[in-house]
């Protein structure tokens, strides 16, 4: 199983046991810490540091979800239209924007928290790359709002060994809403 294959299917084919790396393996631990560090950086607005974790051949996609009958579930994940369809350069351009003093939608910044759980790490057909599946619950709060905005989903990542750490090679996020409850996706998933 590979992240690419999985994500191209739109939903993971579970249970995935092939290549599953046990949680006590240093590889799993490094991968999990990579996800946690990444969450820290984004929650703490350290965009440049986060960018440094992205591979230059990055594919970053967030397909649409649609409400479809059970018989049509294959179409509940829409890939002809997306919320994100980015590569390294377009993500960098987004961060260039955030680094100006006029990216109002995130200035004042949202207060976010990225809860990462249900983490599974898999070997892939590429020796230096791992497939990582994780659940993401993103809480987001702005201004004087007394309730949190949430977005939930599953992330199918592929990460590549790079020196001591990793680079994110691809991320495909299957979110759980057809109609988003936050005014925009001015935050990364």
């Amino acid at each position, binding site marked *: 199983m590979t992240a690419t294959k999985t994500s191209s299917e739109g939903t993971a084919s579970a249970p995935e046991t092939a290549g599953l790396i046990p949680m006590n393996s240093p590889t799993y631990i490094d991968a999990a810490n990579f996800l946690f560090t990444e969450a820290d950086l984004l929650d703490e607005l350290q965009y440049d540091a986060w960018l440094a974790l992205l591979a230059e051949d990055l594919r970053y996609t967030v397909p*649409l979800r*649609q409400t479809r009958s059970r018989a049509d579930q294959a179409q509940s994940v829409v890939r002809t239209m997306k919320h994100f369809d980015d590569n390294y350069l377009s993500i960098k351009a987004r961060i*260039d924007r955030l680094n100006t003093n006029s990216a109002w939608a995130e200035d004042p910044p949202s207060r976010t928290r990225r809860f990462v759980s249900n983490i599974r790490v898999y070997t892939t057909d590429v020796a230096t790359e791992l497939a990582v599946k994780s659940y993401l619950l993103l809480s987001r709060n702005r201004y004087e709002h007394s309730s949190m905005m949430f977005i939930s989903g599953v992330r199918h990542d592929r990460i590549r060994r790079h020196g001591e750490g990793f680079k994110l090679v691809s991320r495909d996020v299957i979110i759980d809403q057809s109609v*988003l409850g936050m*005014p*925009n*996706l*001015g935050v990364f998933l």
Partner: protein
Amino acid sequence: MKPDAFCLSDGTTLDALINTDTREVSMRVLSDAEIYNLEMDRIFGKAWIVLAHASEIPNPGDYVTRDLGQDPVIVTRDKDGRIHVSLNICPHRGMRVCTAEAGNTGIHRCNYHGWAFRSDGSFVGAPVEREKMHGDVFAKESLGLVKARVSLYGGLVFATWSHDGPTLEEFLGDVKFYYDMLFCRTDSGLEALGPPQRVLINANWKTAGEQSCVDGYHTISLHRYLLDIGQYGGIGDEVYANAPAMYGVDIGTRQGHGLRCIPPENTFSAIMGGRLDGLTPDERLKILPPPGITPNLLPQLRKHLSDEQVRLLAEAPPQAGGFFPNILWVFIYAPNAEGEFVGALGLHSFVPRGPDHFEFYTWFFVEKDAPEDTKQKMLAMSIFYMGSSSTIEQDDSDTWPHMSSNAKGPQGRKQTLKYGALVGENKPQGWPGGGFVYEGFSKDDNQWQWWLAYRDYMLAGKTS
């Protein structure tokens, strides 16, 4: 005790909300529930509203569910290829007939008691035929879904609840000449890249509506980042000084539709430099084709457009415009992250969901006959510039809620939206198109026309 149709329950008259002398609009219109309900009847119950693009339902039986104003509808294509819009409410006991957003079926069966309807909304029957569970009060013919009036333009599916009002042609009026350059310029026309993005915004629909026709001025402040990162070729101050992209031609209409035409070199002077000076329309179009037009499609332009339209498309193409009351389309000339001039074509709908909410829809378009690779690049670029994760529009979607909540307080609702800066009609010599034409800096003329159209709808039938 029937209330006066043009007076709110606190005694305020509707025409007092829009001051035509000072060109002010009371902020109360952005939060008042009573006004909102009148809008649902008088505007969304009467105007032609864009619901979908025909390419979303290419085959017989295809359907999508949308909202016409605040009412759920099913947009279907019947077995003969005709498109229908029917109220998605069962005539039996009010259940939603279609619970999915899209699909394909010849028969829409209501889950609740099984009443069935055809793609054209007509009633098929109720389960256990022999028991005649549709009753003896109404004939089967009269038990179909409530139908809206449907008309297409450039593949866009318009519908209205008004069966005896103006035709879509009349509704569009003078903007058709301009919009044809975008929606009706090739043999196969546009196709939608799948279903629209949907986002709920905690704001009144008019915060986006009034902006859509066509607030050019906010670009240099709300989207200032475009300048700060040198998007418009140049750095901050210098750019503000001449604010190049702010100069062009605005066209407004009595119907409330309006657009902006901007010479592309104004926007990208630094990039285009003088390269376009003194070229013929065709030469210009080769160098900087309209978004979505690839070399293989260029020849088709002249087949579908008049010389005047081609010239305008080459020299001052429409870059943003709207359909009253709740549609904004944007045709973006801009390089993608790789520096390629790809361009993006998008359309937004602001669907009302009560006085304090609207749903923000985003469709992206490509020319059906464009190469697949171009379509993919346009998708990526459209996403970068428009819709949920847009680097530009996320600033708008964060702004609208502020306006809406500001309109709630006792002081706030007394404040006004101001449209004080006018260019005034100054149609250039030999300008080919109709409408009210304003050449120069993009000012408040167009948005004020939008409010005058709003006023016409709200006061319709009033014998002052």
